[in-house]
């Protein structure tokens, strides 16, 4: 039981971070506004969760300019994808 709990990733404890990661698993990239609409959260809230995932190097971002407006595209890193898969496996084990 203890081992199983160790496999759970602290970075995905939070529902919003879990949501961000789920969306980025099935999309090559999503921009800030797309994530905001999907999750229904405020700018500040989303930004802080993105920062947390970025600090864990689970996601990366690229800044671009669209019609002179800054547009930030987020995508999951290889490490992030592996960590997310491990997290889901841990949940599934736990629920068995």
């Amino acid at each position, binding site marked *: 039981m203890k081992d199983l709990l160790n496999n759970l990733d602290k970075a995905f404890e939070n*529902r919003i971070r879990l*949501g961000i990661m789920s969306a980025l698993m099935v999309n090559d990239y999503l921009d800030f506004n797309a994530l905001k609409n999907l999750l229904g959260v405020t700018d500040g809230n989303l930004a802080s969760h993105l920062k947390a995932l970025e600090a864990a190097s689970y996601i990366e971002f690229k800044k671009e300019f669209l019609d002179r407006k800054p547009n930030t595209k987020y995508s999951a890193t290889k490490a992030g994808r592996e960590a997310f898969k491990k997290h889901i496996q841990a949940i599934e084990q736990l629920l068995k």
Partner: protein
Amino acid sequence: MENKYLEDLKEIKEMMSKSSRFISLSGWSGVAAGVTALAGLYAVDQVLSRENARLLYYSGEGLSEPQFMLVCIAACTIVVAAGAAIFFTTQKAKIENQPIWDAQSRRLTINLLIPLITGGIFSLMLLSKGNLEFVMPTTLIFYGLALVNASRYTLHEIRSLGILEIIIGLCAMQWLEVSHYLWGLGFGILHIAYGIYIRIKYKQ
């Protein structure tokens, strides 16, 4: 605690589907498109019974007057059916507070339009070369391919609808004499049936 993780899994599945699929498709869109198609087919039948049907297959320079009328009917049918589908789906997205033109709906539209426009151009080429009888099977087949192609980005049911359209299209090509009944089945009856099914299943 188990509950939290069950909820987590549910959230993961929901986010994955919501972020990659456009799910605000309205069942009414299908019903409206189906009814429009049947009306269009009825109008075509009127023209065909009034004119000598054989005249239509004459391949000469340009379009004869009944041929021109058929093209007009087809164009009206497409505009009304697509307009109604877009209208009901927009309404649905508004009610659900979902953006109508986002990454998901853009991807859906692009993947739908590539086979669809190809089929449209191909049909016009058939028409201009005087092969009017092949137009109905062709539209069914390309429409089916378009649906199968786009189904990855919307409700799962669209895939089976697309496959059925392709099968009906191939049958219509094989049995040309009944192709316009099969066209009514594919574009009319199937749309209405799927529209009602989606309304019942998703309550939309």
